[in-house]
């Protein structure tokens, strides 16, 4: 780990010194418990703020679509394999220009959540050693994804009757306070004006009552279907602990099954809702 930290600092320092990039987005040590925190480094001498360890959970790609990074001519970003999946999504949707980003990939054995547990995305990780980058640091880490991990949590939903599922979600979604932390944390929620903030007409009611919460969470999951790369940032950010990844993974499973598509794999492939096949499933339509 410290080895990777050193190398990240070295590369960042070099990029900043020779003008390759204007700034580097990375992680620095946080102040609460063991948390790390995103940081923007603009000067070579500040490169030593950067580090990498198993608490570098934040997906830094979310900063590529925000000020001030968005306006930069060229920016470096430190990224784990899972974070790069988001970048691929942003490239597919033309939100980021490839030549404006220098990806400093870092190999990763998996991170830990604040409570010390291993996130599902790490259990199912197939990109411990990233393959899409400009520069990579760290020894190669073999991926050994647990094939069950990704959709394991869905089994409990699958086992419920529709009515049980409905009351499960009613209870969960009633907690929603419409802070939109899920949206803000998501690197692929790219709209400058979210549908939930449009009021002519008001498709999604903004009040945190059951009907507004239901349609908001439904729309969020729908708009991320086929796009979500399962980085888990939304669920981590949610202050009221709604299990958002259950919805996201249910969508991912659907998209995989119906269109044989997985988000975040290939920037050249069309996302599933931007194309169609003549022989797509027609069985459910009368």
């Amino acid at each position, binding site marked *: 780990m410290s080895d990777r930290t050193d190398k990240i600092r070295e590369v960042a320092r070099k990029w900043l010194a020779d003008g390759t990039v204007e700034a580097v987005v990375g992680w620095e040590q946080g102040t609460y418990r063991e948390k790390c925190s995103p940081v923007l480094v603009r000067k070579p001498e500040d490169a030593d703020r950067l580090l990498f360890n198993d608490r570098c959970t934040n997906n830094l790609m979310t900063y590529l679509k925000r000020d001030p990074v968005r306006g930069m001519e060229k920016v470096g970003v430190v990224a784990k394999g899972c974070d790069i999946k988001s970048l691929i999504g942003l490239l597919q949707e033309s939100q980021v220009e490839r030549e404006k980003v220098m990806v400093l990939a870092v190999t990763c054995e998996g991170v830990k959540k604040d409570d010390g547990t291993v996130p599902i995305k790490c259990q199912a990780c197939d990109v411990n050693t990233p393959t899409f980058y400009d520069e990579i640091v760290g020894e190669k880490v073999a991926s050994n994804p647990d094939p069950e991990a990704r959709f394991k949590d869905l089994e409990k939903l699958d086992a419920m009757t529709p009515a049980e599922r409905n009351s499960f979600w009613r209870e969960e979604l009633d907690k929603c306070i419409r802070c939109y932390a899920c949206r803000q944390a998501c690197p692929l929620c*790219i709209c*400058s*004006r979210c549908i939930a903030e*449009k009021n002519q*007409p008001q498709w999604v009611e903004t009040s945190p009552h059951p009907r507004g919460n239901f349609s908001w969470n439904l729309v969020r999951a729908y708009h991320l279907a086929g796009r979500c790369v399962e980085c888990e940032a939304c669920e981590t950010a949610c202050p009221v602990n709604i299990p958002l990844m259950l919805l996201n993974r249910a969508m991912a499973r659907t998209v995989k099954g119906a269109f044989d598509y997985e988000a975040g794999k290939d920037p050249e492939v069309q996302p599933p809702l*931007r*194309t169609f096949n003549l022989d797509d499933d027609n069985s459910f339509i009368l």
Partner: protein
Amino acid sequence: MSKIGVFVCHCGENISRTVDCARVAKASGQIRGVAVAKDYKYMCSDPGQALIKNAIKEHKLDGVVVSACSPHMHEKTFRKAVTEAGLNQFLCEMANIREHCSWVHEKEEPTTRKAIELVRLMVEKVKRNMALEPIRVDVTKRALVIGGGVAGIQAALDIADGGHEVILVEKDPSVGGHMAQLSETFPTLDCSQCILTPKMVDVGSHPNIKLYTYSEVEKIEGFVGNFKVTIKKKARSVDIDKCTGCGECQLKCPSKKIPSEFDRGLKNRTAIYIPFPQAVPARPVIDREHCIYFTKGKCKACQKVCPTEAVDFEQTDEYVEEEVGGIVVATGFDLYTTDKQGPYPDYKGYGEYGYGEDPDIIDGLQFERLASASGPTGGAIQRPSDGKEPKSVVFLQCIGSRHPSKGIEFCSKICCMYTAKHTMLYKHKVHHGTAYVFYMDIRAPGKGYDEFVRRAIEEDGAVYLRGRVSRIYRSGDHLIVKGADTLSGAAVEIEADMVVLATAVMPQPGIEGLFQKLGISYDQYKFASEAHPKLRPVECATAGIFLAGACQGPKDIPESVAQASAAASKALILFSRDQMLREPVVAKVNENTCIACWYCVEICPFTAISKKDIRDRQGNLIKRVAEVNPSLCTGCGTCAATCFSNSIDLDGFTDEQIYSEINSLMAVGQDLFPEPEKAEGDSPDEKAA
């Protein structure tokens, strides 16, 4: 506050028999924003329309709902009426209480209630309707015709005769296409060249036609009425203005062993050549692949002998730009090859039949050349291997066509007819010979077609065997054709001197590249797709592009010509006005919220959405957004539904309108948790009573 007028039609008794029209009018009058509501016996009649017009003036209405029949029936009528009263036509909508209500329900309370709700739904929509103006698009009144076969020739001549300039682009050195290769044509047996050649000459000399032979379409930009086309004129190595077409060069050319494309390899040509005597333009071209000068650097025999110094070895490909308003695609067909070396590598060939290995196994077009008076044998039927007159010829139909395991499921449509013709041509020249035909079904549905096939069988004695052939192999001087006659149930073996394969009609190899440039769709076989198989068979989904001939699917000459004239008339309709008017039901982009994800660009089937740069006064790029070209947009709304930032809306079916329609369905004060009513009586009439 809106001032909407609601006009409820009784349609005689068609509506009022089951719907209480007066109540519908009264209830409509109580909807907020409705200034006047009336019912009347026949709203579409003159007095009915007058009622609407007067109400518009009297109440200064800003919207009209006619509650009557289906809008497919009378929307145009009422929109015209409100226009006459000074209201924008798009502020008039119809609530369909006849087809969707009075005709399909019993006379009972819920039926009238439904009618009221349908009116209310439309009132809420009309409140949010906008005055729209038809979209006007300038039209360049010139046409591009791609392909110089009979379809392209016909389309070009029709448009040119209509008084508009035509750019005709042909990839080969001469126009004429496959029809020029044919001997006689079914079902009349008139000489193909005799009827085609005059048209070729016309095309060459028509003042309105600009002919680019040996040329290809390189690039197409723009949209209906305003296409910009880049044409690549391939280096011909002959200055056709200087050349007189005397043919001296052909005589002197030392490279004489090149299989002639026109004669399907049954005859050779030289490296500098005029493809056939009647070619238009009758000017040679140098085949640089085979020319000794171009391959070895020495020769120039043609240049030396040319009396007008027309041969120009330095010529290079030239690119010209033309602006046109409409495009006719007439790229025609080619034949499926029966060996694996052909241009369709995706398809399995017929190696088992030995085409390409045995010279006496030929395809239909080769037979045409053999039978043609201008062909390699001067019209005598001689087998290619030794020039002997074949005493028996076996014709096989459906080679490739209707054969899913070879990758093609469609019927090539023309083979039944031309095979019958071949047997006749053969029998007329070889009186004692026998013609055998292996067929799957005989498909001859055309004027005089079935009679023609009957004649081949009954008068000319062609032996028709229903079945397929398993194998053809040489046995000494003969070809043994082994097959099945499924009518008699017997296996048959025929000793033949020659075998003719009626191979499938396929699109020109690689033609999808052109279709992609044009932005038109094509099917799995790469045949161009029409906009609607029944109602718009000659138009592409992309506005301003029309189809003619076999590029769309197998066709015979009459069909190709008919479709070419139809395509020409579509182009002429386009050219009949200085500006086109289009329904203003088009998408529009909210540039403030567009995030340039390009979902809409990718998903639009009409390539109507493009990427636009927004720049400041210094020219710096501020942001990029999607832009809808209203000339191309057809108003399907797929982009609007796909845009997840909700930055696209569709005029005529805006989000606001649809939202209001949905809202109108929630009745005020409605009990949300009523108990389902238990059915008490069987007759629904009881409730109404």
